[in-house]
């Protein structure tokens, strides 16, 4: 095929533009690890995480030649910035131990559900793909991190102190707190219908999930995917308290979390408002308005389920 002169000029210009674009590139900071802050688990787990997660979830990114070509590098830089913001194994030890455990359980769950590593990344970085065996190694490791279920006098004392204030009705603050996004605590959740319960072996809590009237109607009418606007789901978490017979029941109140559905108002956060209030003092969670991205990211493996983990029970 012979190209005419016009086509030749167009091709030459495009090539020139492509070459010129190579000088316009993002900065992707790569640092040597600070051993004190760097995550270390078992050698097996470390090998898997370094192979599948570290490119985006550490400061030790290993860029391949094709990651460095403009415009691909802009996409790569964006993925890395977002990845490091959510989870960074290079600064792992900056977190408190319970937070580290929760984060690792979350990461393993993201891997089990196939949400991580990102499909688009694994497609071109074959070594990052996780095998069934890799997943099993990760599961076995986090299982060992789970708190032991046993009678605990400190937990009993924590409940007793909360109980005394509850009976005297001193626990709740005078005005209802609201979080940084203006989402206020909703005390009515206790009168809603419980739509499920959860025993969280991973973090030693026990939970009741409540649904408001809109949610309960949606469950009855089989309209839970997606949930209708106006749905509110409240998840209440307590310490697990183990009694002498070995039964587990609710200990000290830890937090209540809300998901409030409005697909236009909360479009940017998967169609839901997200809020969490901790301790009987109902301290709102989240310092900046973007804390909700933490919620959305953790719930993302449930994107085909309207971002809801709970399978609701009709009462």
């Amino acid at each position, binding site marked *: 095929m012979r190209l005419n002169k016009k086509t030749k000029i167009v091709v030459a210009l495009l090539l020139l533009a492509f070459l010129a674009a190579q000088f316009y590139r993002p900065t992707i900071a790569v640092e040597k690890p600070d051993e004190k802050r760097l995550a270390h688990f078992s050698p097996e787990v470390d090998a898997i995480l370094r192979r599948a997660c570290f490119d985006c979830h550490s400061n030790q990114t290993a860029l391949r030649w094709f990651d460095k070509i403009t415009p691909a590098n802009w996409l790569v830089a964006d993925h890395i910035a977002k990845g490091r913001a959510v989870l960074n194994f290079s600064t792992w030890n900056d977190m408190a131990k319970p937070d580290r455990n929760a984060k690792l359980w979350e990461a393993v769950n993201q891997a089990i559900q196939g949400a991580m590593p990102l499909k688009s990344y694994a497609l071109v970085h074959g070594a990052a793909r996780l095998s069934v065996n890799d997943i099993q190694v990760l599961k076995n490791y986090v299982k060992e991190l789970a708190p032991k279920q046993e009678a605990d006098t400190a937990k009993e004392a924590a409940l007793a102190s909360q109980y005394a204030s509850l*009976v005297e009705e001193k626990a709740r603050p005078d005005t209802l707190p609201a979080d940084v996004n203006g989402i206020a605590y909703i005390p009515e959740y206790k009168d809603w219908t419980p739509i499920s319960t959860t025993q969280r072996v991973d973090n030693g809590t026990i939970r009741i999930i409540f649904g408001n009237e809109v949610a309960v109607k949606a469950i009855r009418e089989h309209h839970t995917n997606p949930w209708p606007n106006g749905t509110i789901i409240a998840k209440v978490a307590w310490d697990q308290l183990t009694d002498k017979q070995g*039964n*587990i*029941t609710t200990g000290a109140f830890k937090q209540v979390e809300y998901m409030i559905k409005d697909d236009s108002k909360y479009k940017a956060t998967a169609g839901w408002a997200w809020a969490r209030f901790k301790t009987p003092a109902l301290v709102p969670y989240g310092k900046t308005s973007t804390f909700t991205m933490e919620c959305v990211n953790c719930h993302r493996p449930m994107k085909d389920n309207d971002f809801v983990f709970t399978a*609701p029970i009709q009462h």
Partner: protein
Amino acid sequence: MKNILAYLLPVILLAACGRADNRNDAASLPRTFNFEKLQLKTISTVINPAKGTTSTLYGNANALLALRVPDSARAGEKTLVLVTWKQQEDARWFGARIPAGLEMIEVVKTGTAFKDPAQAQYQRYNEKGTAVSATNDEQQQRIGFITSIKPAVMP
């Protein structure tokens, strides 16, 4: 006509198949039990790891207050309902256990204080909502257990 159907069929199938409805059907309460009509408050939840069951306790306002302050001799009818499910691993979160099939529903009613289990009436229902019998000893043991559950702290 055949051609039109050939074009329409995939469209109809797509519309019908949408996203799967999200419900825990096996755990749902039998309609005949009429849970809604009882208008109960949620009191607490208890797990029996040995049996692999999870239960949630509900009660009317009188029952809730009586459990909160055990020595109070509140007048009026008190109703407690304990619903028990088998537990299962949560397929959506490794590390969580959630209710599976419904196992039974137990109802305790009394006009006096919970301290007095002999005065309480006990009825058990199976997973289909059918009333089933329990021996006297069993009834007393279950009344004792159900009325000993402390209400959860819900600010």
